[in-house]
Each structure stands twice: as structure tokens, then as C-alpha cells.
């Protein structure tokens, strides 16, 4: 099955802190030569901590940023450098839902205007057709029809996320980028929204790029999981396998650090030393080596490439 979206050698560097004369200053290697694929109708979950590059990856896929190098192939066409009409066409197929339900909706716009904005930007429909589509979308996300005339501040956080989802669906996209879609919601609401997202995926054949720091939520929603550290993908493979038997030492530490669901749940304690280094100055060789409990002498010299191991790809010299 050809992938819906494929990233090859995707890289994004940010220049920071130029000196008085415009020279000097460092480079933040936010995303460094990563590759992944998203199948139609499937979810790629991305996990990682601060500075790992998952948010930048989302922005690259959404073309909110232009890659420094590499390709983003959408249905086999490279969208990395697209502008103008080509980019507009791409945007029809790829939409997003962001973390903060309070900042995702323009407080001055009515709900029907918010939901229909992507629609009217791309298509010429008369008012009746637009209204019908908005009504249909409100129904799909489980909001009452009268929501269309209200303003965002009249809704709760969970309801606003539903509005954001309705908006993302308005163009019938193929892929939706979900950047921490439930982290800002109350715990009892999260399950509602995650269920809704799963239902929509099944009914509409949507693909998701699901980014979250809640490992269990990512594990629940994803078919494939990619683990990122300091701009690189260190492990990527089938979700169930990655979760049940993580191979990369960082993945192991990450899952070991996750909070238990029951007081009697014991996890093998893998407490990592030190802090996450700054993306301005990643360690030489394997970027994880200063904190790795299984570090070998080799690790500080050569950066490991993603190799198949245990049914998935792992970037580690152990394999």
C-alpha cells in the first residue's frame, strides 16, 4: 500500500542569535534527517520530550515551516517546496487540531463561520450549501445544531475541541495533524474526544499524525509509533510492539517512566540521569549517549542509523 504521506531526510534547522554583524550564532537542529510514512486511514503516533522536534515535525507536515532539506511526499508528490496554488491544493488534504481549545478559535467569530472558513476559502458554494455542510459537521462531532450561532466563549474546553475537529473535517481532508489534542482537557472529557477521533477515523478513512506526551493515549490511538529524541527518530515501528517490548534504551526509559494505572503496577525502574541537552549543541555520536544506561565506547563516536531490529526500526548500536 503506498503511503499517504512520506517524509524522507526531513530536516529543519533554525538559525539563532546572530551577532551584531550578522555572523556567528548557533543552529538549532530541531529536526534532523528523519523519515516516516503514514498509511491512509492509519495513525502515526509521535512521542518524545521537550526539544525532541515533534512539534516542528507537525509544522513541517502542515507547511507552517519550510524544511531546510528533505522531502515530504504527499501521494507521491513532493510538497516541501510548494507555493501558491499547489500549496493551496495540498492544504485541502491536510488539516490540523491543536492543543489549546481556548486559543484555537477566533473569539470574534461565530461557530458557523469558524467551521466553514476552510470551505469558503477553497470552494465557491452558496450560503445554503455551506450552512448544510456546517450542520452536518456539527452533527458528526456531537454538537447541537444551534451551536452555529454562538461564540466560542459560550462553550467548554471539550466542546471547543469538537468545534476545532469539525472545522478540520470541513474540507474532507485525507490527513489530520493532531498536536496534543486532549492534553488541555479535563480527564473525564479526554476519553470522549479520543473516542470521537477513533470513530471518525473508522468512518471517514482519515489518517492521523498524533502527537502527545501521554504515552498511554498515544499507544491507544496509534498503529505506528515513532519515538523522537533531540531531532532524530530513535525507534519507529508497530505500536503494539514498541509499547510491549521497546528496544531503544530511551524508549525503554520513557515507557518505564510513564505513570502506572494501578498502585500495584510495578515497572522496571529506569531513571535517566541528567537533563535533556539543548538542541543547539547535541552530543557527538549518538545524541542519547550521555544519558544512556547501556552506553558503550562506540556510542560517542558514531551516530547510529535506523536499522531493522525486532520487527521495527531502531537507531542504536546495541543492534
Amino acid at each position, binding site marked *: 500500500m503506498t503511503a499517504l504521506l512520506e517524509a524522507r531526510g526531513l530536516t529543519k534547522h533554525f538559525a539563532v542569535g546572530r551577532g551584531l554583524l550578522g555572523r556567528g550564532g548557533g543552529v538549532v537542529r530541531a529536526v534532523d534527517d528523519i523519515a516516516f510514512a503514514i498509511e491512509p486511514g492509519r495513525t502515526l503516533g509521535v512521542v518524545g520530550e521537550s526539544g525532541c522536534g515533534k512539534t516542528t515535525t507537525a509544522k513541517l507536515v502542515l507547511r507552517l515551516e519550510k524544511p531546510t532539506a528533505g522531502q515530504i511526499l504527499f501521494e507521491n508528490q513532493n510538497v516541501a517546496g510548494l507555493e501558491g496554488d499547489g500549496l493551496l491544493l495540498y492544504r485541502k488534504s491536510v488539516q490540523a487540531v491543536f492543543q489549546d481549545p481556548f486559543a484555537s478559535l477566533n473569539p470574534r467569530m461565530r461557530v458557523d463561520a469558524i467551521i466553514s472558513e476552510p470551505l469558503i476559502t477553497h470552494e465557491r458554494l452558496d450560503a445554503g450549501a455551506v450552512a448544510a455542510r456546517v450542520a452536518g459537521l456539527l452533527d458528526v462531532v456531537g454538537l447541537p445544531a444551534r451551536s452555529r450561532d454562538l461564540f466560542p466563549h459560550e462553550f467548554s474546553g471539550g466542546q471547543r475541541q469538537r468545534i476545532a475537529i469539525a472545522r478540520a473535517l470541513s474540507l474532507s481532508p485525507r490527513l489530520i495533524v493532531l498536536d496534543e489534542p486532549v492534553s488541555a482537557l*479535563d480527564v*473525564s*472529557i479526554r*476519553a*470522549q474526544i479520543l473516542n470521537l477521533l*477513533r470513530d471518525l477515523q473508522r468512518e471517514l478513512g482519515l489518517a492521523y499524525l498524533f502527537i502527545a*506526551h501521554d504515552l498511554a493515549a498515544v499507544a491507544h490511538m496509534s498503529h505506528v509509533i515513532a519515538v523522537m529524541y533531540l531531532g532524530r527518530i530513535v525507534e519507529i515501528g508497530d505500536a503494539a510492539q514498541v509499547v*510491549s517490548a521497546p528496544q531503544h534504551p530511551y524508549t525503554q526509559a520513557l515507557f518505564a517512566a510513564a*505513570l502506572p494505572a494501578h*498502585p500495584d503496577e510495578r515497572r522496571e525502574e529506569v531513571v535517566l540521569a541528567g537533563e535533556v541537552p539543548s538542541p543547539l549543541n547535541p552530543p557527538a555520536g549518538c545524541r542519547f549517549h550521555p544519558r544512556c544506561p547501556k552506553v558503550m565506547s562506540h556510542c560517542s563516536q558514531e551516530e547510529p542509523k535506523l536499522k531493522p531490529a525486532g520487527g521495527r526500526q531502531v537507531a542504536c548500536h546495541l543492534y
Partner: protein
Amino acid sequence: MSALLEVSGLSAQYVGARGTRVTRAVDDVSFTLEAGRTLGIVGESGSGKTTLALTLMRLLPPAARIASGSVRFEGEELLSKSEAQMRAIRGKRMAMILQDPMASLNPLFTVGDQIAETLRAHESMSRRGAWARARELLAAVNIAAPERRVGEYPHEMSGGMRQRVVGAIAISCGPQLLIADEPTTSLDVTIQAQYLKLLGDIQREHGLAMIFITHNLGIVARMCDQVAVMYAGRLVEAGPVRTIFNAPAHPYTRALIESIPKFGDATERLTAIEGQPPDPAALPPGCAFHPRCPLVVDRCRSEAPPDARMAAQHRARCWVAAPAPAGSVKG
């Protein structure tokens, strides 16, 4: 032996709009905490858990007032103490850690200054002595190179390190009770694990009692001996952690535990709770959870259930789960 902390019938309100609008933020809350034990107070937005924490420390904003109840700490009634007496207690015998370390630390002063400030406020120490102690405390919270760090400013440190500094300030005067309000929400997963381990170590070493205020049941499962679940200002269930996780009585607790995604759980759909948490200013009549409850009966809509004892340490407010036989005890 009397407990370290005994809270009984505590109610706190916010008064707005020139005295006309009263919002009950904490409603008739009772619990006890023994020395060296950990209590987790679980709740979502609007549950009143942060107001409860502020009430215990007598740090409520001017718009709030304590309507009734008692808070006995080491046998002393805190609610009748003067502000000066509370100042002597806060930081020395009771300490608090908040969610955002950047907001807890003053960006204009070095870390050493801020630790020393607490020390010198409660224990008569010279500046040099306080700084020396500050270095020791930084080492105690596992900050490498404390001699260097003690002269640094908060913005020069990472989030996890700042939170450790906040922890160091909290334990600096050897308190008996530490209240932590969402201390790890802003931290990364692995940093969170480090931090919780640190808090656990400190607790064991110093015999500290802790109260974790959180919306995250995972923290409760990891760190706490007892759990108290809050909903719309009321304590709807309380008990030992295993009892609550194994056999939750209140439908809200049960639904909350079931709705959380778990590793290795192959089921497609998560069990979701319908509706949303109520607005504290507009609570439904009767049991506040009734609009969302799968077990609702008529009585729930009109009468709020009392605090009924279900087993030795296990209490719940529910007409269906704990029908409140005669002689049910409050608190």
C-alpha cells in the same frame, strides 16, 4: 494517636458581584492524614481541589472566605490563628509546592537568595550560614554542582531543575507536611519520574506527610497511600489507594479510572463520561454528578447524598453505592 492533619466539615466560598453571588468552592470536606503518609486529592477543573489546598494554608484570596469547618494541624486549630501565627507555620511546619516553577521563583533573585530567604525567615541564621545550608539543600534535591548552581538565576535552569529548587525551598525548614499542587504537570515524562522519585526519597528520609493535589490518577497510583476524590467542591469518595483502584464505589471515581487509556489494553473504545464538569457557580441540585451518572435514580436529582462510611476507611457520597444506613458518620 491524633492525626497530623484533621480536616472536618470544611467549606470555603468565593463571594463575587458585591456580595450577591456566592460560589461554593469547597463544600463540607473532611479527611485525616497521619504523619509520614501521602494523600492524593483528585479532581478536575472546578472540583475545588486548589481552593482546598489554599484553604489549608490559609492563603485564600480576598474574594474568598472560609464559611465553616475546622482544620487541626498537630492538634492546633489553624482557622482561628492570626496571620502572624500562620506566617510562623507556613514554610516551617507546612510547605507548599505549586505547578509552575517559573512562577514560584522570583526571576530577579538567585536561587541561593530564595532558599536563604525562607531559612532566615524561620530560623535565625546568618547570611553565610543560610547560603551554606542552601548548598546542602540543593545537593539533597540531586542538583549537580550545587556550589555553582546556588548563585544562578531561575532562568538559567531547566524546568525540572527549577522544580527541584522549589522543592528545596519547601523542605528547607523541615516541615511536617508538604502540599504539592500539580507539581509535575509542566514537566516531561522522564523528568517527572525523577522528580517523583526524589519526593518519595525525601518523604522516607524525613518522615514527611504529603498531600498531592492532581488530576492525574497515575500520580496517585504511584505516590499515594490514601485517595480523596473531589467533584464540584465535595469529597465524593475517600479511602486507601488500593481499595479505591480495585473497587471504586462512587460512579464518578469508577468512570474516571475506566476512562484512562492503559497500556496493553486492547479495547477499541475508552469508557467515556458524558457531559462536562459543572460550573461551580451553577451547580445542579441534589448530587452534583447526577446529570452525568450512569446509575442515577430520582433521589439523586433532589437530595445531595451524605458522607457515608462503607468500610473501615472507605467513604463515599452516593445514594446508589452507599445508601447511608442509620449511624453513618461524617468524616
